[in-house]
């Protein structure tokens, strides 16, 4: 489903993007993400498709706001039944929807007696009862605690897939991007990138997008020159003791220009144990400053001059390379893994 909306008030906003399966719209607070959802739901004056000009009660959307807005005076099943037509089947239909989100056992409870995750699923069941063509979710992960967030969200997304409905979720949580079918990134009140999560996460269109996606290794450098014959552009990473970085030729960049570059922590290579494979593009030497144990792997920070380079290291390689705090190591930043954009702001 294509979303094409223009809003003038309370913020000026123009967006045009495709919602497929579970789509995440990422953007910082204040970008107008909630405003967009409310406009699509018909709760704010706006122009655009779908649903242009319809009153909110005539738009086939299921809107699940932040905090879920369950009716406190109605039991869980009554909340779901709210959108169902009156009749003898009403309660049975509501219970059926609650069963699909595994909430039958709390059907008689008031919302105040439900956990955050249960409230979210009840709100989802209520939105589905309306038989929407599009689901709108505002910050679906914000009220969930960190320990269960990924699990609850993965479950929510699989439920959406089961119902076969397109869903648009807005969030500032880059974690969600990896779980979605499609990602759109909003910056400066417009969509600056959209596509499949792999594509967007691995190739952010700008440093601002990279930051929104939660990328860590974002640094400033200066264009040192081009080696056109070798198909290489050289960057001077001044903050890391003037290290020179080689990346695939970027003809748009001018010598002396300030740029921002990035490498994913998972792309940083540790020295190969086999000498024949020791092809090094960009050796960078740093001292281990901290190690974050995430069970399957470690997040290691290397101090390189005044900058801090994040490296993802598998547990067994930690020991192998003796990555203790204070240990010095030379890692390789492969040219093809470096992303570079002209410096803005």
């Amino acid at each position: 489903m294509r979303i094409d909306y223009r809003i003038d008030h309370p913020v000026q906003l123009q967006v045009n993007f495709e919602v497929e399966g579970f789509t995440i719209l990422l953007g910082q607070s204040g970008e107008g993400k909630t405003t967009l959802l409310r406009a699509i739901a018909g709760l704010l004056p706006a122009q655009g498709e779908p649903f242009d000009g319809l009153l909110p009660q005539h738009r086939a959307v299921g809107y699940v706001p932040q905090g879920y807005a369950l009716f406190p005076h109605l039991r869980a099943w009554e909340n779901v039944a709210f959108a169902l037509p009156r009749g003898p089947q009403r309660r049975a239909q509501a219970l059926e929807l609650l069963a699909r989100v595994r909430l039958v056992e709390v059907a008689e409870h008031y919302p105040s007696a439900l956990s955050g995750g249960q409230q979210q699923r009840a709100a989802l069941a209520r939105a589905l009862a309306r038989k929407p063509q599009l689901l709108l979710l505002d910050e679906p992960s914000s009220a969930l605690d960190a320990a269960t967030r990924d699990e609850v969200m993965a479950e929510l997304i699989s439920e959406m897939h089961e119902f076969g409905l397109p869903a648009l979720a807005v969030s500032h949580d880059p974690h969600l991007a990896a779980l979605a079918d499609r990602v759109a990134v909003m910056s400066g009140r417009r969509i600056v990138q959209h596509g499949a999560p792999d594509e967007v996460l691995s190739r952010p269109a700008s440093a601002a997008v990279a930051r929104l996606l939660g990328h860590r290794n974002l640094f400033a450098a200066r264009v040192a020159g081009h080696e056109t014959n070798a198909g290489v552009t050289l960057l001077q990473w001044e903050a890391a003791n003037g290290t020179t970085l080689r990346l695939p030729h970027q003809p748009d960049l001018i010598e002396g220009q300030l740029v921002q570059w990035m490498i994913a922590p998972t792309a940083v290579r540790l020295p190969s144990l086999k000498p024949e494979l020791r092809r090094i593009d960009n050796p960078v030497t740093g001292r281990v400053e901290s190690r974050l144990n995430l069970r399957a792997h470690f997040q290691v920070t290397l101090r390189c001059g005044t900058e801090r380079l994040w490296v993802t290291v598998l547990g067994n390689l930690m020991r192998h390379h003796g990555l203790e705090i204070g240990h010095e190591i030379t890692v390789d930043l492969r040219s093809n893994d470096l992303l570079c954009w002209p410096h803005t702001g």
Partner: protein
Amino acid sequence: MSALVDVQAADGLPRARSPALVGAFTLLLIAGPFIALAFATQWSDFHFAPGDTGAIAVSLGYSLIALVLIVAFGTPLAWWLARHSFHGKWVLEAIILLALLTPPLAMGILLTTLFGPYGPVGSLVARTGVELTNSASAFVLAQFYGALPYYVVAARAAFEGVPRELEHISLTLGKSPWQTFWLVSMPLARLGLAAGIALAWVRALGEFGIVLILAYYPQGIPVKLWVNLQDIGLSAVYPLLWVFFLVAMPLPLILGMASRRQRLF
């Protein structure tokens, strides 16, 4: 911990004892006049003065009519004030404040000026055969003016307490604004609305100043109390007062309990 925090409240948390002590004292102050009444009443010679029964019927019947009118006219106004903002809204608020702070006697005079036989509205209405002074209509009118502003203020606060987001969600679930009002706004405002209705009932039933000027007849309980005191004396006041409590109390008590889903016993 000190002995002041060992009292267990309903939620099981320790509570300081001093507010309870001050509260008990305040309650005693409020109860004082009624305790005195219990002692002053001559229970062995408990009887009504002529016309008391009629006054009870007048008060009960017309107050109920006034209450219905107050809710019917006051609720839309309260809703409008709670849900719409516009330039010059303060003028409306000032008008309601004006109605609240005008002394009842003065309000009675103003109403007589407007609705009396020589008043601009009164003389017009009189042509249709309806008298707006010293008549049943005048009695209801007096109570309406006495209690309406209190109801509007309470109901407005009640509607303002309903989260707009819930009303919006109701719209997105396919309900019309009218259905939303009945299914979401009204139930969620019920505590405040019940308090407003109770307040309006008490104000209407006890209205004396406006009634005295605009509708001396038919006599309701407050005016009859005054007449009994003038004509007979205190002995004729106390029995009617007991009956007043008896008829006035149930509605606000039941409303309060029902809206809190609380039981009497």
